[in-house]
Structure formats: structure tokens, C-alpha cells
């Protein structure tokens, strides 16, 4: 398992958030896409929708199952990555780059502090993988 990018923070449910200038980018982690398998569909809120940290943000469907995505931050959705919606394989190929899902205008940027660091998230994933083998 390669280590997760350190320029962002993570949830226990395998989402990431990266804070930029007045906006945060949100996606799912490499571990999440690997576990889910080939992704085929996303159900995400429209721009303008309000999301709440740790509440259900939307759903992701893979060839195996449908799973819920939780919001790493509270705020207003300002953009959905249409390219990823049209080509879900982008999220499989590049979950931390081209395969981002949403941009959110954070209601409270300090919420980032409650998320996991890359090191802590990697440790969590290592435990999860260890438990499965």
C-alpha cells in the first residue's frame, strides 16, 4: 500500500478533503476505489446543496455493490466533477487527482482538524487490510 497524499485529510469512511482557496475538494480514497472495484455510477448532490460533516453525501455504485459516501466537511456544494460522473473509471484510475468528486465551500474550515492525517489514515487502512487476510 503506497502512502496517501499528505496535502489533504481523511475520514474513517475513506473520503478525503483538500482545502484550497475558499473551497475544498472532496473525493474517495485509493483504498475505497480498490475495495469497491470497477465504479459505474455516482449519485451526488447538485451545486447549491448544503452538506453536513459525517452525514450522508451521496452514493457510489460499483459492479459489486452500492455504498454510501459521507461528507468530510460541512458546507455548500459549488461544483460536481462532471468528467468523473461521465467516466466513473477516472475515480478508479486517479482517485486523488482527475477523479475528485465535489468542490465544497466549507462552512467551517476548522472542521479539517477533526479529520485524519495521511499517516493516521494509512495506519487505519493497514489495520483493515491486516484484519482481512
Amino acid at each position, binding site marked *: 500500500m503506497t502512502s496517501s497524499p499528505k496535502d489533504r485529510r481523511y475520514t474513517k469512511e475513506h473520503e478525503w478533503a483538500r482545502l484550497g482557496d475558499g473551497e475544498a475538494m472532496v473525493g474517495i480514497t485509493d483504498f475505497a476505489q480498490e475495495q469497491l472495484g470497477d*465504479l459505474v455510477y455516482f449519485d451526488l448532490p447538485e451545486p447549491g446543496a448544503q452538506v453536513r460533516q459525517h452525514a450522508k453525501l451521496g452514493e457510489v455504485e460499483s*459492479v459489486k*455493490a452500492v455504498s454510501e459516501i459521507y461528507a468530510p466537511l460541512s458546507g455548500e456544494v459549488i461544483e460536481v466533477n462532471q468528467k468523473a460522473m461521465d*467516466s466513473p473509471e477516472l475515480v478508479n484510475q486517479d482517485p486523488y487527482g482527475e477523479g475528485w468528486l465535489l468542490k465544497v465551500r466549507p462552512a467551517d474550515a476548522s472542521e479539517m482538524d477533526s479529520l485524519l492525517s495521511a499517516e493516521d489514515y494509512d495506519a487505519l487502512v493497514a489495520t483493515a487490510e491486516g484484519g482481512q487476510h
Partner: protein
Amino acid sequence: MSDGERRDMGSKLSFGRGRPGRTAVTLPDCDVPLAEMPSPSLLRDDLPLPEMSQPEIVRYFTNLACLNYSVDTGFYPLGSCSMKYNPKLHEDLARLSGFAQVHPLQPIETVQGALALMHELQGFLAEITGMHAVSLAPAAGAHGELTSILTVRAYLEHRGESRHKVLVPDSAHGTNLATVSTAGFQCLPIASDARGNTDLAALAEALDEDVAALMLTLPNTLGLFDQNIVQIAQMVHETGAQLYCDGANLNALLGQVKIGDLGFDVVQMNLHKTFSTPHGGGGPGAGPVAVKAHLAPFLPSPFVGQAANGAYVFEEPEHSIGKVGAFHGNFGIMVRAYAYIRSLGAPGLREVSENAVLNANYLLACLREAYDLPYERRCLHEVVFSGSRQRAKGVHTSDVAKRLIDYGFHPPTVYFPLIVDEALMIEPTETESKETLDAFCEAMLVIAREAEEEPELLRSAPHDAPLRRLDEAAAARHPVLRWQREDQA
């Protein structure tokens, strides 16, 4: 068929077969006066329908039919589906003209035999489940679930209670969640504990006055009997909620334990699973609902009752939720289930569950060295393995499933339940011989060895099927929903 022909059958439609101008029938000369077409413009010549000779058509469809895989052609261990063999006698009985030729609108005094069968079947199913009343109306298992929850909702509303949540353990059938949403409730998942039972602490935390019901699959989708069931029933009832049993896995319990005695208020049964009625090709099925007395007045109509003079009549329960389908349910399926119950009798039904459980545990014992067992317990009618050991070698459960096709078996259910990593859910049913189970185990053990030594063989399977590995992701991302001519595609 040669291998080439089989591949051809798997990929080439009737379009493009035959030759222009070829026909399957020769019509006699017209012996009536010709008339003008009222609107000649309605005639189209742009439909490129296949033009084939009769033997070409017959061979095309016969060969296509030969590609089918069914319980009649081989072992079909699809978990949670109870793909048991269906005795052919039941087909004969369902085709008796008194059953097959009746019309749902014909005068009731002319169909007393059919109603007597329904009335008796209601009684048998009530006896088997330990419940008080049965509705035969639902047309499938999930339809029975929805009927059950709507019945519970009507009961609670009648009592003036407004409850909004339904609890569903994470080891339940996936349809339960859809049932809850469709019935207008909020769905709350409940975790399983380390033994595969419902986690009592999680249940206690979720239970409050806003909970309408707990939907418990028994045995659950891990093939395990919930050892906390008596305590669960007590906890649920203390808050005034109803306890619902998803009875799709009743094959494990027939004649062993009555659902009603465990404290459940309502259960749906899948006749097309447990009671050996065909369920290939999507149906028809039947999902009767059995309830305790307090829920009986809310069941859907019609209910078959008996008048004082002994005549059978259709009745509507006092506070019925109304109709859940057209007419009286899938009657042909009821005939087959009735025949199954009558031909086996109580001792035979008990042997069904004994052998179903024995066969699943035989598979568990034969395969546990090669595949990980997520819960260290004996199973009931089905066993769930995890392919996590194989995944460490870069082989996924879907690869194991595809490789089984090369060995001539229908793959088991995969990736369900979701709480088991790389799940392989195997339900052998009671109708398989030890030789068949041994042949299946042998194939599974060979595949486990192949995963170690030649993983690519699995990743590129199937090798011997009419079509090779299909791209499921592309099919879901870019579905092709109808055939189009090449020049129009």
C-alpha cells in the same frame, strides 16, 4: 454443437442469419378477392427482419436453448436462492385442467376445488410457521416483504401510533432495505457481532418509541441462526415494535422450529424457494405472508374463508390494506407448493431442512482448509466463505466464480453479504447427492490450487464458455439496451 458453433450462438443474433427472400412457410394461393391497402404509406420495408428457413429457425432456437443452465442440467449452488430440484409430478398437477383452465372471474361455485386448495395451503403455511393467518396474495418474496411491512404500518396506525423507523441488521437480505424505503419508513442498519448474531448493544441503542419494526432474516445471509433471537424478541416487543422475519431462508428451519414460537409477529415465505416451485427466468413466484392474530385483520384481500354451509368464499379482512395484486395471487405456484407439502408430509419436510443443513455443513467441512471461514460456527442451509486469502494472491472472488463455469458449475452468489470481504455464498440445497457435492468440492479445491500456482488462469476465466469474460463495468457504464443495425449503430 462444436465449440465454434457454441461461441457463434452466444454472440450472433438471428439478425444476419439466413438469406434475403428465404421463408419458413409457404402460404397457399389467395382464394379471396384482393383489396386495396387503405393507407399504403403504413407499409414499411425498412425492418431488416431475419429471413430464415424453418430448419434454420428451429436449429437457432434449439441451440440457443441448449446454452441455458438450469437445475435440470446441473448443480446450481446460488446462495440465498434455494435452487433445489423441482419434482416433475408437480408440473403435471398444475396442468390439470381444473387448475390450469380456471378463470379468475368465473362464478365462485364453479371453482370450489381451487379455493379448497388455497384454504388448505393457508392452513399448512400457518402450521409450518406457527402463525395464525396467512395471505397468499403476494406474487414474490420482496412483494411479501412489502405486504408485511404495510400490514404492520396499518396495524400501528390503527392503534394511533406514529412510528417512522425500521431496523434492519447488516446481515439481512438486500431487499429489506428497499422494502423499508418503499413503505415510507426510515431504515436504520444494525451491526452484527463477532459471532454473526445481531449485536444486542447496537440494537438496544437503536430501539426507541419511533421504531415500527425490526426486520430480521433468519437464518441470516451468513447462513447462521441468530442465537440471541429470544432476547431480541423481548427487547423489540418491550418498545411496542413488531418483529418481522424474512423467511426466504425457511429451507433451513422447516419442521425444526416455528417462526411464531420464536416471538416473530409476521413472516413472509418464498414458495419458489422453500416449497420447490420453479423460479428460473424471473418467476412467477409467490411470497405468502403469515401473521399472528393481532395483525390478521390488516392482511391484504382476498383471503379464502369458509362459510357456515362449508362453501369456500373470498373474504376481505376487517381493516385490510386492500389488494396487493391482480386477482388472487399466482395460483399455479400455489398448486405446486401444495403438492410439495402433501407429497412430503410433516416428516418429509423435516428431512428437507435436515439434509439442506447437512449438505451445507459438508461443503463447509470440505472447503474450510482452502477458503477462509469468516465466522467459526457450523452453518445452517448455506455457507459463506471469504476469498480474502485468494485476494492476497491477486485473485478475486469473481475470478473463482468465473473459473467454476469452466468446471461445469453455476457459480455461487458472490460479494454478498456485504459484511464478508470477497464473499462466496454457497447453498447446495437438500436435493443434491454426495457425488455432486464431492464433484463441486473437488472443483473448488482445484481452483484454490490454481489461485496459488496459476492465478492468470482464473483471472482470464471462463475459458470454455460460449463467451469469455464479459466486461461488467462497461455494461453498467455504457449499457446497450437494444440491437441496432450496424449501419445505424
